């Protein structure tokens, strides 16, 4: 024992500062909840959250402008590389926008612990309780999202997964209206999420058995040296894949998405639909490209199947939906399928970087449009809250032409009509997939795009070509926050659709060196 000194780990604080800022602010937020008087909480929490996200974004940009690091930070646990920084940037912007939505109005339950319809609840409403824990929960979730795609070993990734997911399970159950639906969504999400986490954990354990390490680089190295343990490897990979595919909502692990999206408060849905998808794709790419990159001949056929199934399930089931949020959930499933075609498009380093850049661009484009679409959903209201049922949207184009026009524009972007961001996202991913020899997959993608177009167009038909119902929903006068979200999302959808080159260049630079190991 003599002479052994414990060396302190080297931590690149500057590089990790975005995460540190977000987590730090989250902890301060918890303290505010504990010590600040109720009437002050919201006016502290909201600026704190926005500032933290903004600060994290600024430090991300600074880190990126200092040149991309070539080795993993924090003793090889966290890989802050080009893709990570790009993903961080997207997540932070999208989270910022979603936070504006959360701020917007009384979407959240007064007191989550009160039983729906009970005296307790009435009392909580009457005394004007407000659930300001939402803000620290959001920050914890965002912190987890930042760590998730950047984790360079499976253990850190699992921690990140949980840090990201647990606050989200809670947030889902906080809707002020239709509380039972919201709580049901929360429980479903929690149970299924716990299952998938267990799969992830088990897969990780098996891979550890195979490679003797949970480090992504070490697993990659083990692929070449360890032999005779293929069962461990393949079962482990499959279980890991289940955990990750669950988070992106790929079929056949998509069942939670519509229920959760529908039940959660719409602002939270906006956050989940955009940022979680981004983070989960980052993690999926890192695991499959870095750790299992040399195994791609083995996992690619499976991924083909998952991608095809996801695209078709998303597109076909969306047709039968009658609730706008469920429809957007299935649309999100279909989009996850389109993104998967890019994950499969591996090959030479050049091919990989072009596929990666395409995925990054797609995630940015899709994230903005999604937040915008859900922001519009929050504004169309009935007596009992948001008017979710599609039939209530009939004739919206006549009652609120501008709002309906913007929503139609978002839908066209989802459908991938040229001159919207969605088109170039799809185009980039499909081009990468063709370059990677996945032409049949692209044909399936195109066919399901055509199917998907049908239900997007159906909503436009409802809004513009049908006469409004006499007792139609009211359009809530949007707060500054909501208007800003819609305007920002619309502007991003236009700019990325007409002049995508700057963001493409950025994505190219981020993807040029691929993931560091």
């Amino acid at each position, binding site marked *: 024992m003599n002479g052994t000194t414990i060396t302190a780990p080297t931590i690149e604080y500057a590089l990790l500062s975005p995460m540190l800022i977000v987590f730090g602010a989250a902890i301060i937020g918890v303290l505010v909840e504990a010590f600040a008087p109720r009437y002050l909480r919201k006016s502290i929490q909201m600026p704190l959250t926005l500032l933290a996200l903004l600060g994290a974004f600024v430090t991300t940009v600074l880190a990126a402008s200092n040149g991309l690091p070539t080795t993993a930070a924090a003793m090889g646990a966290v890989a802050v590389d080009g893709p990570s920084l790009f993903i961080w940037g997207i997540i932070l912007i999208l989270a910022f926008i979603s936070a504006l939505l959360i701020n917007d109005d009384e979407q959240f339950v007064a007191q989550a612990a009160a039983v729906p319809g009970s005296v307790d609840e009435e009392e909580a409403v009457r005394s004007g309780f407000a659930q300001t824990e939402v803000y620290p929960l959001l920050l914890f979730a965002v912190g987890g999202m930042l760590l998730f795609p950047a984790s360079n070993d499976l253990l850190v990734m699992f921690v990140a997964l949980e840090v990201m997911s647990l606050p989200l399970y809670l947030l889902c159950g906080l809707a002020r209206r239709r509380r039972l639906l919201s709580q049901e969504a929360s429980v479903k999400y929690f149970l299924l999420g716990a299952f998938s986490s267990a799969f992830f954990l088990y897969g990780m354990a098996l891979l550890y058995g195979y490679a003797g390490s949970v480090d992504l680089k070490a697993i990659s190295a083990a692929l070449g040296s360890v032999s005779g343990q293929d069962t461990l490897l393949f079962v482990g990979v499959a279980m890991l894949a289940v955990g990750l595919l669950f988070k992106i909502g790929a079929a056949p692990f998509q069942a939670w998405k519509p229920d959760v999206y529908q039940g959660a408060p719409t602002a939270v849905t906006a956050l989940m639909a955009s940022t979680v998808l981004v983070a989960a794709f980052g993690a999926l790419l890192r695991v499959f490209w870095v750790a299992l990159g040399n195994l791609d001949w083995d996992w690619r056929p499976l991924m083909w199947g998952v991608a095809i199934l996801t695209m078709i399930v998303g597109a076909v089931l969306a047709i039968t939906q009658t609730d706008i949020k469920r429809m957007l959930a299935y649309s999100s499933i279909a989009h996850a399928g389109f993104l998967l075609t890019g994950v499969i498009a591996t090959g030479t380093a050049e091919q990989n970087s072009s596929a990666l850049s395409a995925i990054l661009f797609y995630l940015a484009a899709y994230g903005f449009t999604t937040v915008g679409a859900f922001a519009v959903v929050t504004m169309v209201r009935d007596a009992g809250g948001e008017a979710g049922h599609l039939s209530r949207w009939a004739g919206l184009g006549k009652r609120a032409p501008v709002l309906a026009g913007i929503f139609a524009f978002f839908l066209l972007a989802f459908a991938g*009509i040229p*001159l919207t961001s969605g088109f170039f996202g799809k*185009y980039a991913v*499909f*081009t990468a997939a063709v370059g990677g020899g996945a032409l049949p997959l692209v*044909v399936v993608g195109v066919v399901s795009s055509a199917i998907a*177009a049908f239900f997007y*167009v159906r909503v436009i038909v409802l809004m*513009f070509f049908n006469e409004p119902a006499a007792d139609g929903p009211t359009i809530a006068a949007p707060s500054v926050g909501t208007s800003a979200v819609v305007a920002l999302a619309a502007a991003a959808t236009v700019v990325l659709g007409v002049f*995508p080159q700057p963001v493409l260049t950025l994505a190219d630079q981020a993807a040029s060196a691929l993931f560091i190991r």
Partner: protein
Amino acid sequence: MPWLSTLMAVPVVGAVGVSLVKSDKLAKQLALAVSLVVLALTGVMAARFDPALGASKETRFQFAEVYDWIPRFGVHYGVGVDGIALVLIALSAILVPIVILASWHDADGTGAAAPPKRSVKTYFALLLVLEAMMIGVFAATDVFLFYVFFEAMLIPMYFMIGSYGGAQRSYAAVKFLLYSLFGGLLMLVAVIALYVIAEKNTFMFPELIGVIQDPTTQKWLFLGFFIAFAVKAPLWPFHTWLPDAAAQAPAGAAVLLVGVLDKVGTYGMLRFCLELFPDAAKFFTPLVIVLSVIGIVYGAIVAIGQTDMKRLIAYTSISHFGFIALGVFAMTTDAGAGATLYMVNHGFSTGALFLIAGFLIYRRGSSQIADYGGVQKVAPLLAGTFLIAGLSGLSLPGLSTFVSEFMVLLGTYERYVVPAVIATTGVILAAVYILWMYQRTMNGPTAEAVKGLPDLNIRERWVVGPLIAVIIALGFFPKPALDIINPAVDHTLSNVHIDNVHVNPAVAEKKGAGQ
């Protein structure tokens, strides 16, 4: 001066202006003024166009502008026109002011059928946006830019049909959009594959000619493009959306849909299918010719059976598109030039038919042929111009369509005798459907509901007058148009490596004598 960019920018700026002005009347006037400015600019541009330059590879596309748009994908903002594109742009520029004038009351809720009042400004703004896109799609010399316009132009038309059309409008609009979108997405796969396989890192059309050599690849890519164009044009059996869309669209939108938008399909075949994939085009020629001939005869026979005027005119168009596709794939100069001229002539004659039928429907509130009779007695001018437009549709010598149809048949006969002979029956059937419709609506005893129907007013005369004038002018003196078209078609066919384009050199003289 960047002529083509100006031509696109003016209507876009105009559309913004139209949507901002306060009164509906001002919006209409502004829209008309903007479209007339575009027409004037197009006229000046056409006058400065030099057909002789079309022979050389470097100067093939005139008024060319090329800027990088998305270097990452090799996409350029590349525009330029050869003779084929120029006449189609001219067609669009002439039709739009006429359509605006004809649509004066389409959106404001007047008319016998008492349609609901709708946003007038939006309608005219959409028309102008559509005009910019129509010019863009013909002017694009970058395959990707072409695709962008090809898809994006669906959206304004979709809203024009869906918001301003007849009773079945939303069904028709969705059917139109989904058919076109499906074709377009197949084309997207081919566009992506073209880019990846060509490995030129550019989408500029001139640089992609002759790059794809492998015959199998050519065939697949050809199919991707061709099916999209065949849905658009539409060729049999991809045609079923057209009668619905054209019948439900307001008359003005129907004119632009059938007159210009559908021409993008046949234009695309001539420009992209033939030049980018020459061997595949030759391989598939028999198939396309069979489809075209079926379309010619089928469209004509089904047209005879229609009871709805707009549907009838839509089916005649399916027959005519068969002729155009036949001309494109016959791959002789005569047939190619004839097909191009046909695209223009069909735009005018069918446009006139749709618009005059639209005037009738506005007065009477029904598009059913059975609801009319003896209109000629109460509205002689309306009936007379309808007859002229109809006769042009059935290719009466002296009216414009005759020249082009004759050239197509002649050019096809040089290579494919049997299809040409069968296609000729389309001419006879045309006489049946047009004259029978005329007889049922305009002749005979005046129907009770038709009595007191007013004749064309001043505005409507200004709509019909120019159209009839163009139809007659191009019927007697098509030379200026052919002079512009011929070098461009020659150039196109030379890229397809057709050596004996002039199978029968004497034809040119005979044709001249025939006029």
